[in-house]
């Protein structure tokens, strides 16, 4: 019972807190919060594919870009509006995810990660060079904003939209991991040979888990296009993919604080923390990434300590002794 209380109370708390946020801070800070929400969506969907299927993607930026360019092209060339661009952005990214996952089924661990990283770069280079469609380094400008009731969204309203999508993504990920499908995926992740002799179609499970993560990356990419009304290949680089992966890593470490089971709340929180950290380090200019790298290194080195601390904090909050819960 305790678990469910935590599972519902915490997101609600966050929701209320986040609604208050845009009224108490500057427009600049609201923008950063919006970016934090978008990073949270990218990272939560990645966390889901990692935790249920063991599919680690280092190419989230690529799928993000596909969503953004899809929305940009549909909006500027066909004059398509917001809900449709989000939908098509998501679907096209998911399709790209399937096309990437299908031929790389035999790759595991580091090799799969390298493939996805390369894919992310390929997407960026295609966007840079396919000038007919993407206008290359010039980028696509003049994308219409999201219009609701005949009025374009304000900065605050964009934040709420991103928050709403993030909360939807959170519940989607939670639900999928607890579903029967999630159970089959976890079984496949633990031992794919045993899973296959029990009747599980391992290729389909792996591909679908990858596609689900890409779906959300595409949706949030479309949101990005509308928010900035401009897309260019520059922001969709490997750094962004790495940032998302680090958010997801930190999230899985923080997770035991909030929930007894593996959940995505830790990822949500770590997206906010790391987005603000990156923003706060902006004054360092080119040294920013070096500090970020140092942070990552410390995280990896002190991973066991962080994990233990998170566990004990979690049992302190829930007032219960925690048994070791894997996955």
């Amino acid at each position: 019972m305790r678990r469910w209380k935590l599972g519902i109370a915490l997101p609600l708390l966050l929701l209320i807190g986040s609604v208050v946020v845009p009224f108490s801070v500057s427009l600049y800070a609201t923008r950063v919060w919006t970016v934090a929400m978008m990073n949270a969506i990218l990272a939560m969907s990645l966390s889901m594919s990692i935790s249920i299927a063991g599919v680690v993607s280092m190419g989230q930026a690529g799928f993000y870009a596909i969503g953004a360019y899809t929305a940009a092209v549909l909006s500027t060339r066909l004059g398509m509006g917001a809900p449709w661009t989000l939908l098509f952005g998501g679907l096209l990214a998911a399709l790209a995810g399937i096309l990437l996952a299908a031929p790389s089924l035999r790759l595991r661990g580091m090799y799969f990660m390298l493939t996805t990283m390369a894919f992310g770069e390929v997407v960026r280079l295609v966007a840079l060079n396919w000038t007919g469609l993407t206008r290359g380094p010039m980028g696509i400008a003049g994308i219409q904003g999201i219009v609701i009731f005949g009025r374009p969204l304000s900065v605050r309203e964009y934040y709420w939209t991103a928050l709403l999508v993030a909360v939807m993504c959170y519940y989607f990920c939670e639900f999928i991991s607890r579903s029967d499908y999630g159970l089959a995926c976890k079984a496949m992740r633990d031992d794919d040979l045993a899973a296959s002799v029990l009747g599980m179609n391992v290729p389909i499970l792996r591909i679908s888990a990858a596609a689900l993560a890409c779906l959300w990356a595409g949706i949030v990419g479309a949101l990005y296009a509308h928010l900035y009304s401009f897309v260019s290949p520059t922001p969709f680089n490997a750094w962004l993919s790495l940032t998302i992966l680090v958010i997801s890593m930190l999230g899985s470490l923080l997770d035991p604080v909030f929930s007894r089971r593996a959940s995505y709340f830790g990822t949500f929180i770590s997206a906010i923390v790391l987005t603000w950290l990156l923003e706060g380090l902006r004054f360092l200019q080119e040294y920013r990434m070096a500090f970020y790298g140092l942070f990552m290194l410390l995280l990896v080195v002190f991973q066991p300590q962080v994990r233990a601390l998170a566990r004990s904090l979690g049992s302190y909050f829930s007032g219960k002794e925690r048994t070791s819960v894997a996955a």
Partner: protein
Amino acid sequence: MLPDVVLEVKGVTKRFGGLIALDNVSLRVRGGTIQGIIGPNGSGKTTLFNVLSGILQPEAGRVAFKGQDITKLPPYQRSRAGIARTFQQARLFTSLTVRENILASYLERQSLNLSSRMWKCSSGQKGYADEVIEFFGLQPFQETACASLPYGVQKLTEIARAMASKPDLLLLDEPVNGMNAEEVKGVCDLLRRIKEELKVTILLIEHNMSLVMSECEVVNVLSSGLNLAKGSPQVITTNEQVIEAYLGKRVGISLSPSAES
């Protein structure tokens, strides 16, 4: 009612490079029986199981299950057709609990529609999974993550997980490997109950002769990838060739039924 012959293996050959792991092996398993496969180490028993469950493709020969040729089917389709197996070293889904292991296997049999399963959450429901847990006496362990189970319980859980997929034919690769005499007796009782109450045909590989002698109706002997002999346990243990394969050539030796090889 199960067909007369559940599994028929005809002339299966499997090579690994120059090594002939299985050489023209044939096998016939009648429905509702417990059959054993014995043989010295490296005689191709596990390779045969891998061919039967679809993990390996044989170079020659065919495998028929319930009258249908399944030689070319991938593992998951054979499982759906009704073949379940365990491994010599238990291969459980280690981060999941015993209950989740069993549930994952059972749910696979329930519905093949992936998208509908994304919206279903059966992990809290009582039902078939609990029946299986009870049948195998795994109640005390059901919420334990499999990585931290004692070895004997892991073996048992693996059999339970295979049975949860509601198979017609159960392939057991050394089910009592590493167990003590008491545990072996427990497994023997279970096998008999699986056969009699659940009407599942069992084909097992085992080195433990007391189990083979007491439970198997027919024993097949493999040696260096060849069918060496076939018959009732009593006949097999007095077969000159079998004794020779295990112990080398010597006149006047006899294996008593309870002796372990």
